């Protein structure tokens, strides 16, 4: 299915958020996630089933003021 990952369309075979993150290269990285604007804690990623067109945000530490 096609997801919108950080605003860009991406094809994945995954069905859960946990699987999608691994498939998209985030395994082992310090990131936080949101699906369709709602925060998804790391411990719940495997329970979140993705749907066609879901908006996934993956963020990591960055410089800030």
């Amino acid at each position: 299915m096609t997801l919108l990952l950080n605003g860009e369309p991406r094809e994945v075979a995954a069905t859960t958020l946990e699987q999608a993150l691994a498939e998209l290269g985030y395994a082992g990285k310090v990131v936080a996630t949101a699906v369709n604007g709602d925060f998804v804690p790391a411990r719940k990623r495997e329970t979140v089933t993705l749907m066609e067109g879901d908006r996934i945000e993956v963020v990591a530490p960055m410089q800030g003021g």
Partner: protein
Amino acid sequence: MASFYGFEPKSRLFLGTAQYPSPAILAEAVKASGVEIVTVSLRREAGEGGAGQAFWSLIRDLGVRVLPNTAGCHGVKEAVTTAQMAREVFGTNWIKLEVIGEDDTLQPDVVGLIEAARILTQDGFEVFPYTTEDLVVGGRLLDAGCEVLMPWGAPIGSGRGLNNVYGLRSMRAHFPGIPLVVDAGIGLPSHAAQAMELGYDAILLNTAVAKAGDPVRMAQAFARAIEAGHQAFQAQPIEARDMAAPSTPVMGKAFLS
């Protein structure tokens, strides 16, 4: 020593981590100035080769406290979700809460700020709200559970110093026991010293150090100015007056004309 949710830093300079010429210069600026609290943010990370992991490694090696921000958030929902993500990534309940209401000045949307602060406080966050010098808003933020207030000096990145000295002095007088931090708009160490002389507890700045020709030296200059300003406040400055008052005693002066 002022307490920020139970933490009493020796340094009253809180430093942003953005816009430095290099990560090494950022690290050196933090070390050279004795800063113990730095602000950080969250941004989209690419799956391959994302820059966030190296940055986080650098910050962790500094051994300082991190204060994540919600910079760039324009709404309550966006700010709350960003705070939730920041708590998980950075492992802290601290959040510098920004809800921006106007793009030319980056002025806080204080209505949204109060609402977001209430939601986050109830969820266990320790909120550092980026606000204006408005006393009523300050009171509402405290009602919402904030234990620190961070009024702006001037618009973010403007380097203008304290735009409303009267307002900031009033705020200090109005909230005597509350830790107050001037956040944003500081351009020079003298601006920071002025805020500390008013009785502020700390200064949060980024651009004035990061974009200086020599950020490491400027960070040290700010640290010293902030310490001097704080010491001056503790020493109880004299009141200004309009006319001269001779400091050298008049009594006993030789009569020579």
